[in-house]
């Protein structure tokens, strides 16, 4: 019955999308066009279909000129009257209605919130609309590509992940945030960092140093690396969420700050770098607004074990998955550069991977006081 009340609430707003703010109005009209397609098909007695751009590797193209991943034109046609597709067809439309509701009411929610918003028992059946959050997440991604709209435009956000400190002052939802006074925890990067939410006020930083995870980031923050070198220090908790990527993108483009990445020396570290640089396979449709082709890979490098004279005990042997992934990555066209091929080959030849923390074995502050400054000074990085 919650469904019914939701419907009546909505109808008041739906009638007049022109009352919505311009960005929302655009998204809302797209949602309406999507729904109209179903209505039209039904009226013509046709099988309603959705042409969902394919979010698969085969439909991803690397644009060498722009240096980013782009989505191809391949689409998957999703039929309502197909046993295997009926459920996901329904789920996509449910997500669309959920987004319409959020936009109409001017509210935002998390992916999980959306899941709960739409999850209910299908009338006359013992089946749930969504069994797992993955189902609604995937439907949301479908909707994004269908509408060519961003998740944020659908009033959805992910949980905060990633933190930032450094010589920058910004405004977040009207609050002034001075990132040089964030204590030991740093500023938690929200998932929606669009200009409507975050504006840059003042920036003294010369570059951005992005590290893989929280532990390394803490070392740098504790050593006040950003103060000494006038930079912004971010981390993305492993694979950076889109909020972090979008913020890096905005700072890079709007404030003209170069981005350096300090990641683990393993296939996953390489891939994190490539996601920041070219975009991810899964979210290729957002590369335009997130990829930073000029980002640089500072470390760790396969050569570092010898160059830095690390102790043998910090090595972690490559397992089968690592090797497979490394070979896979070597084949991606955006890793085709000679230096990168050499890097991956050396990793495989080494037969072990290195975490950034391995540098601690030299000295607790080795990474902040010697390793990183030296690399920056020597301009010793991969591009």
């Amino acid at each position, binding site marked *: 019955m919650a469904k019914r009340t939701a419907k009546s609430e909505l109808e008041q707003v739906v009638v007049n999308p022109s009352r919505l703010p311009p960005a929302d109005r655009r998204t809302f009209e797209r949602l309406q066009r999507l729904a109209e397609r179903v*209505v039209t098909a039904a009226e013509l007695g046709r*099988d309603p279909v959705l042409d969902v751009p394919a979010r698969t590797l085969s439909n991803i193209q690397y644009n060498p000129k722009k240096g980013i991943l782009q989505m191809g034109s391949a689409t998957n046609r999703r039929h*309502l009257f197909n046993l295997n597709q*009926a459920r996901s067809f329904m789920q996509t439309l449910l997500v669309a209605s959920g987004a319409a509701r959020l936009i109409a009411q001017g509210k935002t929610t998390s992916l999980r919130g959306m899941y709960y918003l739409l999850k209910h028992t299908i009338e006359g059946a013992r089946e749930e609309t969504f069994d797992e959050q993955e189902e609604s997440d995937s439907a949301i991604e479908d909707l994004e590509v269908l509408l060519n709209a961003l998740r944020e435009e659908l009033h959805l956000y992910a949980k905060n992940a990633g933190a930032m400190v450094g010589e920058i002052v910004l405004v977040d939802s009207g609050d002034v945030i001075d990132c040089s006074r964030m204590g030991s925890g740093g500023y938690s990067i929200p998932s929606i960092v669009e200009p409507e939410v975050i504006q840059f006020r003042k920036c003294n930083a010369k570059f951005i140093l992005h590290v893989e995870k929280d532990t390394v980031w803490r070392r740098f923050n504790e050593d006040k690396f950003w103060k000494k070198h006038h930079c912004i220090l971010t981390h993305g908790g492993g694979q950076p969420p889109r909020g972090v990527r979008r913020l890096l993108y905005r700072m890079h483009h709007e404030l003209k700050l170069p981005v350096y990445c300090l990641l683990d020396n393993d296939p996953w570290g390489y891939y994190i770098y490539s996601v920041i640089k070219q975009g991810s396979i899964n979210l290729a449709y957002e590369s335009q607004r997130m990829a930073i082709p000029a980002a640089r890979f500072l470390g760790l490098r396969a050569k570092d074990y010898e160059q830095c004279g690390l102790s043998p005990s910090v090595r972690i042997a490559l397992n089968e998955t690592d090797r497979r992934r490394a070979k896979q990555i070597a084949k991606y066209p955006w890793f085709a550069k000679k230096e990168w091929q050499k890097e991956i080959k050396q990793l495989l030849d080494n037969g072990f991977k290195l975490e950034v923390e391995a540098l601690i074995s030299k000295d607790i502050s080795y990474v902040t006081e010697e390793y990183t400054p030296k690399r920056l000074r020597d301009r010793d990085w991969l591009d």
Partner: protein
Amino acid sequence: MEAKWVAVSQEDRKGKGGSANAGPPSNGDNKLASSVSKMRATAQALAAKQREISVSEFFAKNRHLLGFDNPRKALLTTVKEAVDNALDACEEAGILPEVWIQIQPTGENRFRVDVQDNGPGIVKKQIPLIFGKLLYGSKFHRLRMSRGQQGIGISAAGMYGLLTTGKPVKIVSKIARDKPAHYYEIQIDTKRNVPEILNGRGDGEDIPPNETGRQYMEKRGIAWIELEHGTRVTIELEGRYQRGRGSVEEYLELTALANPHVTIHYQDPEGHQTSYQRLTEQLPPEPKEIKPHPYGVELGVLVAMLRETEATTLARFLKESFSRVSDSVAQRICEAAKLSGRANPRRLSRQEAEALYQAIQQTKIPAPATDCVWPIGEQLLLRALHQMVPAEFYAAATRPPAVYRGNPFIVEVALAYGGTPPIQRISREAFEDLLAETDARTLRQFLAATFDGMGASAADKILHEAQLPRRIMPSNLDEDQRNRLYETIRNVNLFEGQTMTVLRYANRVPLLFQAGACAITQTVMQTNWRLYGLEQARGALPTGPVTLMVHIASVWVPFTSESKEAIAAYPEIQRELRLALQAVGRKLGMYLRRRQRAAHEGQRRNLFLRYLGEVATAVSMITPVDREKLYEKLVSVAKRKTAQADLEFDEHGRPVELPQLTAQDYGGGVLVVDPPDAQQPNPLASPEGLETQQPAQTPSRQP
């Protein structure tokens, strides 16, 4: 009981055998034995003990060979032998058989078995021989399809009765309305294998066909149902009455199933009466008697035949003693054996006989005529099976006649799929009776041993659902536990745990024991039923609600033993079995696949219907459109999209039946009944020549 048996035979030995010494060498031979050092017995001493063994003696000692291994089986075997004989007699005389069976308790573990038929009766002088002499009969020396084939059965039953109760066999037989009825009380002399007549000063009694006769019978306590002609056998024996698998009831039910032209009346020891009415008024065609086929004769038999023949020339001997041997075939055999066609067959030497035998194997002789074996027929099989086993799909296949070792035979198979397993059809009373009678030690054993088609897993499932321990003694169940068990049995889904029930028949006689040793069971297990949509573990019976009926008809059914419980695995027989099983299997496969598709279609439509509501709601929330109208439109599209196989679209989204395949689509020999949830059992809705409808004749049980 065992002790008594031994005592009787030893007494016999002393009384009549005279000279035989029972113990190890002693007495008179003492001296001799000691003089030959360390020799345990001399040739002479052994010779003194070597003597002829009477057939009766042999079988008295080896009664398990005849199916009298335990009291329960003895009771069944007695009924079975009498009924088989009755049916054979009726059919041979061209009379539609009607049989009355009565079992009455006469004491602790003692029963009186009465079997009467409406057959032609037996002429006076034959009666004692038929019932009082082992290996006497009309069936051994001929090749003709009949139930009995050895001439052992009924006299062995009489012998068993005599040995366990001391009571003679009583026979009443009448051959015509105005002829007297003959009454005999007979016991078999095991030593000499001859009958001894006890009444009428060793001559039997004649009872006139009038009121006086009737009064006389009443006075003497001779039971007889008034008939123009027929035979009644009464045997009193030590036995045990128990229902369930391997019981008299099961045997009779299965007999009725394979003999739709027979009416059976049965009264059990508790006085309950059951009747199986015949389904057809048509007697099966009379099987022709044939001469042996040359290929089926072994050398020893050939030699014996040569010695006994009355033919004057070898060519004539071949032509007259065997089927399918024409003048030219006889000529060719003689030529191949390098013998003259005009030689005297009785004077053939051993070498010559062997040459003849080899020549027969090398000569091309036509296969035996096959009009000597008659199957039950697909249509009757379907009808009979439908009568006995409520199911939704029936298929039958009759193979063309084939030959093993020169004996023609026919294999036919009928199959019923679906319906409730036997255990779920049982009444509360019958269930209580079974529980009370069983000698199973544990409840699990009771369930698995009493009911057909109950695998161990099904038994476990029931016990688990009923929350009863597996090891509990069936007799220790209290009222509450019995209720719970019965309720569970009725309600638990046994579809998966059920194993296929295989009903085996030879010449229309059900085979109840030694399933594992039988070629039929073995071939069923070797057949890959997974191809036909059933689940089956390797080398096991398939699982599923399936009842399979397999019938082998032959002029000589090759049993593995005299008790006729299992069929020997001749490759030719196994091959025919396999082909017949595959034929019904294919039909079942077609049906199951179709059913699955129907269910699938139904599911598919349900699925769409469910999602359409959600889609309509979602769309109407985004854009101003009437939800109900949109829903209607989507449903109408859905109808068209899913209506490829079925045109009926029902409101509640329930699976709708597909148009039925006709029997022709299956290649004939099938019967499809509406699924059980259609409530009313639809009698015989086959489009194929089954229009002669009989009123429903389920066996009626009256207390």
